[in-house]
């Protein structure tokens, strides 16, 4: 019993912001609103917020790898693509009955984790770090994109699922929950929204516990000073690999949810532009803290969309200005800056 209590006490800790009621009560209110608002809202807004949520897993994974681990990976979109395409291939071949979509989700995340292990082994045990790692992961993303974009011909199929090249794969079923008396299909709508919100919360609390545990503390120590961590006897590569695998698997989860939401996945999701976006979201929120990253990513997605809807041709310019302002005035991240100001303390002094 006390082990369980110790496990859950890690929700608060030195690596994450907020530990007292001043943090948890507002957050609790926010979560309550998140659960209740579909009752007062329309289909479009629910589907749109669910859409934003699909990207947050990728942001969470990047925050873990980059914010806590110091590893900047441009490869989140590669794993996003792997997750999405695997889900599509499995469900197009085996249908949606009997919970196949759930198995497909798990399989996609697992495949992402396996590929991440192989790639990570190649990178970290080859002592590749810093910007070199960024470029190699970027090269992998673009390699996948270029390769997939030309798989338009009929010979490019895995079972029943045509990869369909640049036009992308569509027609896969939405997430379907097996239920006695009739399977519940969850296209973008309230049902899907609740599923994704709940899983998002599990991931959020899971990461909080992870980074406040021994693993997280060592990861941060490696970020601060890898040589010192090595001198103290920790195998730096193993921890970096661990963070990379978890972070990339989360990106695959993002890919699966995106594919479930839109019934579509395309190689453009793995392009240079797409690869830079998660970095921008997390940077605006504040990569040093998981709460800041997620809230920042959500805010950025919403603001960018609103600008595009209302700003016509000037939307992209305003986004650029926003990024500049953010970097120059709040380099650690807008949300993180806000937290610091509100809680009037730095993260280490709890």
């Amino acid at each position: 019993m006390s082990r369980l209590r110790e496990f859950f006490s890690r929700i608060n800790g030195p690596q994450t912001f907020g530990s007292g009621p001043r943090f948890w009560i507002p957050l609790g209110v926010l979560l309550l609103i998140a659960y209740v608002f579909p009752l007062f809202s329309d289909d479009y807004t629910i589907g749109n917020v669910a859409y934003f949520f699909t990207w947050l897993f990728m942001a969470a994974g990047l925050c873990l790898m980059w914010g806590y681990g110091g590893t900047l990976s441009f490869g989140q979109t590669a794993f996003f693509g792997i997750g999405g395409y695997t889900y599509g291939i499995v469900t197009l071949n085996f249908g949606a009955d009997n919970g196949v979509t759930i198995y497909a989700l798990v399989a996609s995340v697992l495949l992402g984790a396996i590929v991440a292990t192989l790639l990570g082994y190649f990178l970290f045990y080859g002592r590749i770090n810093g910007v070199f790692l960024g470029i190699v992961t970027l090269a992998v993303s673009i390699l996948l994109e270029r390769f997939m974009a030309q798989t338009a011909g009929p010979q490019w199929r895995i079972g029943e699922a045509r990869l369909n090249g640049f036009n992308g794969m569509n027609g896969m079923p939405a997430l379907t929950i097996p239920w006695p008396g009739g399977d519940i299909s969850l296209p973008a709508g309230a049902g899907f929204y609740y599923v994704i919100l709940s899983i998002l919360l599990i991931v959020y609390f899971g990461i909080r516990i992870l980074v406040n545990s021994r693993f997280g503390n060592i990861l941060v120590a490696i970020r601060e000073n890898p040589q010192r961590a090595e001198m103290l006897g920790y195998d730096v590569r193993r921890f970096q690999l661990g963070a990379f695998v978890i972070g990339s698997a989360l990106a695959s989860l993002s890919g699966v949810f995106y594919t479930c939401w839109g019934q579509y996945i395309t190689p453009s999701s793995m392009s240079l532009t797409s690869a830079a976006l998660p970095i921008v979201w997390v940077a605006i929120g504040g990569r040093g803290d998981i709460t800041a990253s997620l809230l920042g990513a959500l805010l950025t997605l919403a603001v960018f969309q609103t600008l595009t809807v209302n700003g016509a041709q000037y939307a992209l310019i305003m986004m650029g200005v926003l990024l500049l302002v953010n970097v120059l005035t709040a380099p650690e991240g807008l949300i993180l800056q806000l937290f610091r100001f509100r809680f009037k303390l730095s993260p280490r002094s709890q």
Partner: protein
Amino acid sequence: MTRLSLITALSGILISTSLAADPPIKIGVLEDQSGDFALATICKVHGIQLAADEINAKGGIAGRPIQLIIYDTQSDNTRYQEFMRRVLQKDKADVVFAGFSSASREAYRPIVDQLHGLCFYNNQYEGGVCDANMIVTGAVPEQQFSTLIPWMMEKYGKKVYTIAANYNFGQISAEWVRNIVKQNGGEMVGEEFIPLGVSQFSQTIKNIQAAKPDFVVTLLVGTAQSSYYEQARAGGLELPMASSVNVGQGYEHKRFKPPTLANMYVTTNYIEEIDTPESKDFVKRWRAKFPNEPYINQEGENSYLAVYLYKEMVEKANGSTKIPDIRKAIATGGISFDAPEGKVTIDPKSQHMSHTIYLAKVNDDHSISFPKIWPDIKPYWLGEAGADLTKSNPHTQYTPSDPPKKAE
């Protein structure tokens, strides 16, 4: 409140409700006004705006004014998904005109199907979309290649080299070219597929010279790939070229210095140089409203006539914008419009459109002449391959190597 003001208020309400008895017909427009594709698509929005203004000036569709809801999709597939959902669920548009690249169309098509929307795709593409919620006014390969390739082979010779963009549109178009060349007794001396975004062609130019074709079929997509023409000319390659994509979409003949595109033949359903009286009048009206338009391309004209076709459909369906009524109107086979290119008709089996195909030749000074015109070429492939939307709705896209199964 005095009795007089009460009466005034009541009559005010009565008048305003009677005026509000004709709610507008909402047309959603999802086009790329920024990003990589903006060059070819900005004028699509203008075409729709011109048509909407003209129709509203004459009383609207079945007496209701058109209201345009325009979103900039930034050449980004995810924006298509976001905004298609928005325009159908939030804005409650009656019909949507959307998409340039086939990827964007395939991205939004599941959403259109799921939300039971109606969408016009006004772009040339690789053909094969068989979906009752989609109406396609763009030209398809059987319209562009079955006219172009035999003509080129007759004029220049039977040895053909194809360079195509390496994705669905390029690969399927190249397949069409290959089949037609074979049917006409010709020989493919080479085929090269270029990834999107590539702008350097020295090796390709060398390969073409080695193969010694009689003409080159160029199916290059995107502004980076169109750099080929400049480099080919500079590299001394002066073979005649045939294309279904360039000039008609990206007006390369206006942007490149002559004689880069000399001896290029393009089959297009419309370009602004067409000198029929209808076309000249259309260009005049367009330029009166949009004096700074760089060029009026085939997608602009498709978008313009699509609004009129929708008007036809709604009016033939007795003013209803509900999809089953509109589909019944289409199934009669009589939805037509006298467009700037000529008369166009919607084919009920595929919900694609017939076209007048113009063969445009780019001269040495980059002026255009029209050696041949094929009126009323129907989009026959889907129907001949066994698809029939009046009977079944497969919600899918077929390709020549993945055709609908023939009905038993």
